[in-house]
């Protein structure tokens, strides 16, 4: 049985001042637990191989990354085909604790905006200070992208990943391309 992909998965748009890329499926797992408790932190790290991120941060490991979503919520990123297994590992590791683990791989979509003007493009939609002094790789923000909820982080200096819900992915895709439309550079490059 072939897996039904979302219509724009993998699409890369390069007609503007930054490239907009809709990622193919990722594994995404929501973990709700008290992130200040040592045994819980250890359990999550043992299941994912990644240290617990500091507030407003993303920790990246070899096979997974942990996004800080709130004082008691993480989003685990991993390969799509590992999502089921990692969910199970987390559930088992946290079985003795008060925690909620849910495979949410299909609930959200990730875009990346890349190029030298990526920060400027995303700054048209997001009320966050994205200047290089303030927002750097390793940081994470939950905010809004125009009219929808979004999360942001930078895998490298020229790329911003934008996380949003699946149902609004077409909207997010459209406004990201609009923000990157030709001729819309904020600063002369």
């Amino acid at each position, binding site marked *: 049985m072939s897996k*039904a992909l979302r219509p724009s998965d993998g699409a890369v748009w390069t007609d503007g001042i930054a490239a907009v890329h809709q990622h193919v499926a990722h594994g995404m797992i929501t973990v709700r637990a008290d992130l200040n408790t040592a045994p819980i932190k250890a359990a999550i790290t043992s299941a994912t191989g990644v240290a617990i991120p500091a507030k407003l941060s993303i920790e990246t490991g070899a096979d997974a990354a942990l996004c800080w979503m709130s004082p008691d919520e993480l989003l685990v990123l991993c390969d799509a085909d590992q999502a089921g297994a990692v969910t199970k590992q987390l559930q088992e590791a946290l079985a003795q604790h008060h925690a909620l683990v849910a495979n949410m791989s299909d609930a959200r979509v990730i875009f990346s905006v890349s190029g030298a003007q990526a920060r400027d493009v995303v700054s048209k939609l997001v009320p*966050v200070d994205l200047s290089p002094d303030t927002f750097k790789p390793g940081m994470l923000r939950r905010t809004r992208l125009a009219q929808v909820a979004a999360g942001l982080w930078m895998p490298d200096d020229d790329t911003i990943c934008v996380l949003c*819900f699946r149902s609004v992915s077409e*909207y997010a895709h459209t406004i990201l391309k609009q923000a990157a*439309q030709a001729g819309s550079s904020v600063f002369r490059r």
Partner: protein
Amino acid sequence: MSARLPKGGRFIDRSKQVKFIFNSRALKGVEGDTVASALLANGQTLMGRSFKYHRPRGVVASGAEEPNALMNHGLDGRFEPNQRATTTELYDNLRVETQNHWPSLNFDIGALNTKLSRFLPAGFYYKMFIHPRPLWKHVYEPIIRHSAGLGAAPKDRDDDSYEHFYTFTDVLVIGGGIAGLQAAKTAADSGAKVLLMEQTAHWGGRAPIDEDLAGGTIDGGSVQSFVDQMVADLAAMDNVTMRLRCMGAGIYDHGYVLGYERLTDHAPKTDGPRHRLWRVRAGQVITATGAIERPLSFAGNDIPGVMLASAVRDYVENYGVSPGDRTVVVTNNDSAYLTAFAMKRAGLDVPCIIDARADGGGALAVQACDMGIRVERGKAIASVKGTRHVTGVGLCAQAGSGAVLEEIPCDVVAMSGGWSPVVHLWSHCGGKLTWDDSEAFFRPDPNRPPLGADGQGFVSVAGAANGAMGLGAALEDGGNAGASVRKAGTTSVTRNVSSPEYAPIEPVWMMPHGAPYKLRSKAWLDFQNDVKVSDVQLAAQEGFESVEHAKRYTTLGMATDQGKLSNINGLAILSDALGQPIPQTGTTTFRPPYTPISLGAIAGEAHRERFQPLRQTPMHAWHDANGADWEPVGQWRRPYAYVRPGETVQQAVNREVVNTRDNLGLLDASTLGKIIVKGPDAGRFLDMMYTNMMSTLKPGKCRYGLMCSENGFLIDDGVVARIDDDTFLCHTTTGGADSIHAHMEEWLQTEWWDWKVYTTNVTEQFAQIAVVGPNARKVLEKLGGMDVSKEALGFMEWRDGTLAGIDCRAYRISFSGELSYEIAVPANQGQALWDALVTAGEEFGAMPYGTETLHILRAEKGFIMIGDETDGTVIPQDLGLHWAISKKKDDFLGKRAQERNYMVDDSRWKLVGLETLDGSTLPDGAYAVAEGDNANGQRNMQGRVTSTYYSANLKKGIAMGLVLNGPDRMGEVIDFPKTDGASIATRIVDPVFFDKDGEKQNV
């Protein structure tokens, strides 16, 4: 006559001609022109008609303060009314038309109003049209509406795009004149991050012109070379961002500032957005917004050719355009002498400088006399001659009442009543003003700045905007403002400034001082709204003592220029009429934006297909390709019905309704909310959230539940499934998914923070498909993978398994009264399962159905719908849902509220079924009338329709409604009047119209 001068013009490039169209006439300007300068260069001084009296009007100013030269600009999708000719930069094939005249600019019928002006004083409309009352709505108002307004409203959708830009800076400097440049430089030198905005296309403000004429220098060089050097220095700094054509539009709380950048107004064919709205968070704001020259109030000061003195020299110096050949300067201060110098330098005639001050001016006045210009001290203009253009002025004594001593022929009157600092931005967020008696203006009071969250001022003012007039003062003030926001460091640089001293201004609010009514009624204060000195005096006489009241009564300062020229003159006249000093009268409130900004800029990206996010389910594209007639449900789009070729929407609904009961229906139920609630206290928590008992539910089972607000009213409903001892999955309504999740989190975080419960909203993770109808089990058995028999999966149970090879959770629940399953699969598999069901279902008569069929099927069964049967005032008891309200529980949200006397009152309207005697369908929302009238003389009511449909299964209209004592009145007939006057006789019946015993769903 106005014309292009043979040479000069700082901003223009004479080698580049630009064609444009003015009132269907093809004209030529040059690159760098504004519409106003290009029109003057073509001898066109008449640029519009006034709002009320339709008087001929010419351009008065050269910048953002222009009240008269407003034009309809562009065509079709780029049409915009009320564009100021003075700030509209010329481009090839630009098209402008004058406004507010009929049939033509030169001959305007409305100008008859000026003959009637004696009968159209301030408050005329209020007085005239108040009686008789009905005439206002039906006669006066439509006529006034037709004649009011300036430009035409755009009819086409805007062709351009717009965007926002969020930015954060230590220091924002608004205004790129010398004070702003110096402030930015001083601040930036300390390493602070600085953003500098200038509303025009040029740096330097007006100092380069004025000091060039006055002979002022900075460090021995020209002001222009200073400006060039500052701009180059700032541009080379990494911590400085500089924007031209970017206006500081408004200052708000917490250092939030809007900047309005006009990107392609001057080059409309270029790629990219037209306007960009800068949404700035600034640590400190410095407004260096300069000052605006004030007109003088003399009779005929609105006749084309009467202009601000500064504007006259701007056209000469900046655009190489002379507004006329013979310019009379009239002033109460020294700055206007510069205009005389500019005209002389351009080889034009200055017949006279009329200085209202008895002692005349300072160094510049001496210079004027040395140049041989006639200077008349203590004199005034009695009135301006001419109708469509100035032909001369009558000279009189300022101290007198206007007896004409001499007529001086001229075609331009350059007036200066002094300068008003641009305090708008300072005032937007609460900065207070102080009256400066020696300079005769309001300036910012540094002791009462706009306060930030820390109680400290976050706005400071620099240069002329701060009342620091003159080159040296402005520059020093700019440096001080910059130093005050420095991160660390040294004091500001001292510069060696040389510029002539000005003699003191003498306030002149009425010219001549003793002007009689005849002159006062021709002396304009507000050019755009046609408010005269006599109008403000009348307002005062009629008791409008507050400046805010007088403003509204006379409309002074209420036009699109927000009184930039008229406010101070108007309140000086009001103060005089009230016999009180100006500061006691005070100013009206300055509100953002500084000048009007486009609605497109405010909307930003939210335009066309980006207007609103539309949420799409995983099967959205399939629905779209298969005839979905879309219905908005929250931000989702759901198929209302799937319309086949040749069908109406109603026919499609009827087909779907019958087919689902007879064969098999498929519904995309993915939008329904799904919230996981997990933890040792999850059962206890849900017992509080729902009216019924959830903690006793066994794993593998489902239960329908009701949720109420703490006020007892129904807010949501849905099926709860117990997954394991610690875990529940709560279904909510489509619209409730986010709000109910937030509602749960609020109670958990604020009231029951010590309960061990986690929630997460998994709505988007799953596609959910309802498989409904007598053939539902057959199609699932055909897909195969799990046992869906009655024994393995009973009514109100769920099981995990696979169907068609896809991992799923199957719920045996029914909102239709049919044999029904809801299958949840990961969202990315939703389309695959849907396709499998459509294909496998073909032999069983499968058809997709939309939300209308969903509604009809549930109404046939008497099931309530949140939002139809509930409206925020309905409690479960009203709907006969007592069975779902636990009597065993100590508490749940809404329990106490439902015990209030009003909630247990027997006279609350209660849910019943409604069946029309003639089988017709009741109108939605119809009310049932009772005998007699209420205290307000309105007909008494005894009930209303909450849901009403045509049921193709029952072949008649069915409805539910809330009726007084309804359940006790079964069989009674009540009347529902329609809007056409007829009534529908309707019988009160049981709300369950179909399969009352539930035999169809329990198979």
